[in-house]
């Protein structure tokens, strides 16, 4: 009979406890009672109730205190406060503090049974929701590890053999054959990168970045990102002009992930810019923030696409012909920036170009 729903009633009036016990007789609920808050809390630890009725006015520790303590012990326990008929205001306050419902005294057996049943149902729903959430997280993790093993491993093996083949044939290959190797390697590399960024979105809890925040100069991740993209920029003959105000105050952040933000945004600018144009990267102080803007003279983003570009798995219609992106770079960038308590914005005009702005708060020691 361990699985019976359990109700604990904490009330200093014996007549209340007795009548509740009377009312619940013949119901499937298992009941325990306590005469004051302290013994009620002690009993709670071993009884593990689903639902607790607490009288707000008791000698010793108050019902409010009991409410708070139960919340600390197990926030999934449903609490209903018992109040005198005239004290609706304290019932409201109790509900603000986490009580699920209130039971005004005096009450009829039907009222009590109804509220008890609702409280028990509430607890079941809460536990169910938690179980579902856990299951979802587990599935997500499993999916991530399947993706990495089943997709990345074969691609890595393919790429490694192509590397080896090209290396062994180095002197025998004609320039045309070398170019074909280059194409194969680039496409496989794109695939691997795409899988990595999917994994990033699926498996990594971006909010955990906060644990590794340290003061850093915004110039660092920008410089690393520009260096990282040098090949792409050279291929399209695009000059990345960086204008970073000297003596910018530091921000608090994670260098690796901020580098990823700038790689995604500047990389986008390069991808959508015509050959031979310029991309401007500027960083300046703006009150309590540092603003980094990345401006291109590219194809621009249609007004109807603008609201969606940070959504993930979205690529603008106007960008289709030029895009080789994965549609999630900007979504990742936004998540990272928001984990830094910052914001990201975009302005664009079709055919003229696009400007992304990243705002990050200055580090306050």
């Amino acid at each position, binding site marked *: 009979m361990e699985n019976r729903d359990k109700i604990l009633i904490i009330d200093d009036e014996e007549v209340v406890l007795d009548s509740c016990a009377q009312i619940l007789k013949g119901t499937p609920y298992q009941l325990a009672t306590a005469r004051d808050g302290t013994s009620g809390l002690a009993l709670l630890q071993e009884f593990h109730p689903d639902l607790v009725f607490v009288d707000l006015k008791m000698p010793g520790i108050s019902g409010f205190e009991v409410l708070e303590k139960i919340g600390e012990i197990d926030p999934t326990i449903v609490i209903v406060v018992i109040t005198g008929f005239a004290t609706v205001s304290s019932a409201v306050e109790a509900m603000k503090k986490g009580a699920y419902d209130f039971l005004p005294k005096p009450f009829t057996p039907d009222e009590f049974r109804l509220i008890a049943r609702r409280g028990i149902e509430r607890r079941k729903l809460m536990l169910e929701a938690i179980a579902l959430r856990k299951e979802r997280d587990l599935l997500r993790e499993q999916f991530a590890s399947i993706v*990495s*093993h089943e997709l*990345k*491993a*074969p691609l*890595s*093996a*393919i*790429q*490694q*053999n*192509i*590397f*080896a*083949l*090209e*290396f*062994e044939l180095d002197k025998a290959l004609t320039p045309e054959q070398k170019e074909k190797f280059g194409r194969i390697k680039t496409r496989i590399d794109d695939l*691997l990168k795409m899988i990595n960024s999917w*994994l*990033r979105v699926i*498996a*990594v809890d971006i909010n955990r970045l906060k644990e590794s925040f340290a003061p850093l100069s915004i110039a660092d991740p920008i410089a690393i990102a520009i260096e990282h993209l040098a090949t792409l920029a050279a291929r399209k003959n695009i000059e990345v002009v960086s204008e970073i105000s000297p003596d910018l105050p530091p921000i608090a952040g994670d260098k690796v992930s901020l580098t990823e933000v700038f790689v995604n945004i500047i990389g986008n600018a390069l991808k959508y810019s015509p050959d031979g144009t310029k991309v401007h990267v500027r960083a300046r102080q703006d009150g309590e923030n540092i603003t980094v803007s990345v401006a291109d003279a590219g194809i621009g983003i249609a007004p109807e696409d603008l609201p969606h570009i940070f959504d993930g798995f979205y690529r603008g219609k106007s960008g289709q012909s030029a895009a080789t992106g994965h549609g999630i770079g900007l979504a990742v960038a936004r998540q990272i920036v928001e984990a830094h308590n910052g914001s990201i914005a975009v302005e664009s005009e079709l055919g003229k170009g696009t400007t992304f702005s990243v705002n990050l708060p200055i580090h306050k020691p």
Partner: protein
Amino acid sequence: MTKKLLIIDDDPDFVSGIKAILDTGGYEVDVAYNPKDGLRALQAKKYDLLLLDIMMGRGAEGIMIARKMRKDAKLREIPVLIITGMREQIAFLFPGEPVHPRFVDVDEMVEKPVEPKLLLDKVQNLIQAAEAKKAAK
């Protein structure tokens, strides 16, 4: 004298790719396709460098080898090049430690797949670093 390398990795196709590069680079390369054979080989023969995969079998079995090597005074001297497909996940295996875990005296990590030049550079540098360290003792 030709340097002897050992690869421990459970993916034969991947191994074929790196072994070919190392062969061309003039190394003598042995391969073990699971952690058990790998440990046996390490104990049976003297190697100048180990190339170690992390994710093998049912999980991070490569870590197990690294831990065993760390405890063994002789094996600890062998430099290790860790080759992993999961740079991000490795941080979770050593919570609180930086992404580059110090398994043994001399080690480094590269991600799969590895460019030939990078692979050969790393292998050469690690062997030299380990020899320098040994000579200084």
